[in-house]
């Protein structure tokens, strides 16, 4: 069963008397452990979709399902609870809290839980990210890649089912970006899905599939990307079995505006 799913989701914004339709009927699903990228030009509705997936916003039409449960129309309180339980966030600008140490930043999502294991878990996560010696550093004492790794650790502290990443490599140089993407791949190996919204073609070397979003429509088509990191082969093979079967249906849609493609990583060609 898909960990997160949208069914015919439409999102409209009212701006100055005009109605802007950002998403025009999106069907999208992510399976556990899958690494999916959402690509598209600016204004294509990528971030809107990510906000809907993250329960940060409600769709105008259609529904969002989390673990098969319809979460549209829930109260803010219930949505917040569902978000905390199931979803982790990673942002382009890291959004670490400047006054807190790396360890405290990782603990933030669970700060009010009075959980005695919290500290141990945050230390574990940071060690997993290779930041065992940076626990008590403030964000301004960390490099961009380190900050993003702290952010990934933060997104994982509540053991989510899916991590939503908004331009996770957008503020990083290419090499650091690769390291971060490696971390995401490692995350997916623990059966946590990762959905990354990005402009960065580099991301597609690591993902299991890419969906394209243009003008509020989504298309999943033939592969466009060729590169991939070798060690992900096993993961992508596993993904193949659970990959969404919706492509065909979508192809049959009458408007025929699909410009996007789904790229499935099926080779093991190393690019490093």
């Amino acid at each position, binding site marked *: 069963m898909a960990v997160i799913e949208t069914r015919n989701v439409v999102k409209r914004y009212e701006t100055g008397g005009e109605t802007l339709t950002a998403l025009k009927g999106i069907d999208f699903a992510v399976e556990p452990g899958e690494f999916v990228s959402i690509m598209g030009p600016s204004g294509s509705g990528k971030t809107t979709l990510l*906000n809907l997936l*993250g329960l940060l*916003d409600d769709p105008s039409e259609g529904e969002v399902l989390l673990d098969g449960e319809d979460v549209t129309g829930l109260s803010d309180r219930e949505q*917040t609870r569902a978000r905390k339980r199931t979803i982790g*966030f990673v*942002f382009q*600008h890291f959004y670490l809290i400047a006054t807190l140490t790396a360890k405290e930043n990782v603990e933030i*999502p*669970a700060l*009010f839980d009075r959980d005695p294991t919290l500290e141990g878990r945050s230390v574990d996560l940071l060690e997993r990210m290779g930041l065992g010696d940076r626990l008590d550093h403030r964000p301004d004492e960390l490099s961009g890649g380190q900050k993003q790794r702290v952010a990934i650790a933060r997104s994982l502290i509540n053991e989510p089912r899916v991590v939503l990443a908004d331009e996770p490599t957008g503020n990083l140089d290419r090499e650091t970006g690769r390291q971060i993407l490696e971390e995401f791949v490692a995350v997916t190996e623990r059966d946590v899905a990762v959905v990354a919204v990005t402009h960065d073609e580099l991301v597609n070397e690591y993902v299991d599939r890419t969906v394209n979003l243009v003008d509020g429509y989504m298309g999943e088509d033939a592969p466009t990307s060729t590169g991939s990191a070798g060690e992900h082969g096993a993961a992508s093979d596993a993904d193949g079995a659970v990959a969404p079967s919706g492509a065909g249906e979508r192809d049959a849609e009458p408007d025929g505006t699909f410009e996007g493609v789904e790229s499935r990583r099926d080779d093991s060609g190393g690019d490093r």
Partner: protein
Amino acid sequence: MFGAVYRRLPSLLMARRNLGRTKVRSILAALGIVIGVIAIASLGMFGLTLRYQITQSLGDIGNQVLVTPGEDSDAITERDLREIEAAAGPEARVVPSKTRITTVRYGRSGSREPSAVGEQRTIQGIENPGLIYTAAEGEIPEPYRSGALIGPDLAEQQDLEPGDAISINGSSTRIVGVLAAGDGFGFASPSNEIILPNREFQSRGYSQVLVSTRSSTAANETAVALRSRLNGRQERVSVQDFSSVAENIGRTFQALNAFLIGIGSISLLVAGVSILNVMLMSTVERREEIGVMRAVGFQKRDVLKIMLSEAVLLGLLGGLVGIAFSLVAGMAINEFIVGDALLAFRPSNFLYIGLAFSFGVGTSLLSGLYPAWKAANERPVEALRS
């Protein structure tokens, strides 16, 4: 130690760190509360100390009861006087007096004869003034049969001394004594009095009777006894004692205190506005941060808690510093007015300090409410749109 506290109250940790981030601004905001707390506490203590000082002075002379003719009577008769003496008991001194308004002329300085210009004054006839007055210059004759006694202020104004002559109602009289100044309160204040022997007055009955008892408690009891004994169906006498005067003074000071605290509260109001401003700025600056916290699973009330903790922390900080300064101010006030700095630690002073402190914290909390509410209700989507 703090670690344990913060683990239990994570919002406090966040709040403290956030305040630490903008130290100068936080300190300035807390300074407003400090000033407000000092204003309320020290003005309250000031009023209280003044009142204390007045009550102390009243205590010395609050042992007097003044009896004047009541509504149903023109004068106090000899019979009334005997009843007053009986009610007052053997230990009290009962001094009846008569009054008259008449023309008085004073001697010019150095001259032994009264001047030609006179003024209308009330003069008193007392048989035994030595019971309630003492002489600063000259003497109060015993028994008192002739000569005039004058109050110290009058003596100074007119440059009079014992031996000088004044003319009362056309007849010249020698001054035999100048009275010593009293405490400034009480019914028997000698400052501007002119006193003649009782027998110089022809009128029957007395215009007032002053009863001087051992203590203010005795004065109060005497007053009660007099009222019940003399005022049956008719109000023959009107009895005044210091309990009512003290009450009046007390009320006046209560009003004064309320006024002073009102002034102090204005400074707290200003402090509240400055905290409101600081917190609003803080919510705008930390919009994204708050958005992230909401995104990663903070409920609205968690954000509310953090923001309110900040406001309360500012209030607590300001309040505690304010208390420290207020105590110093209170000691200075008490040293200055009553001459004993340690009187600043009277329990009633702590009432004002507590009041000021809770006003300070309360103001911060109230000022924090709107910014906290605003921060908590910001939609994370809006906050994170960069």
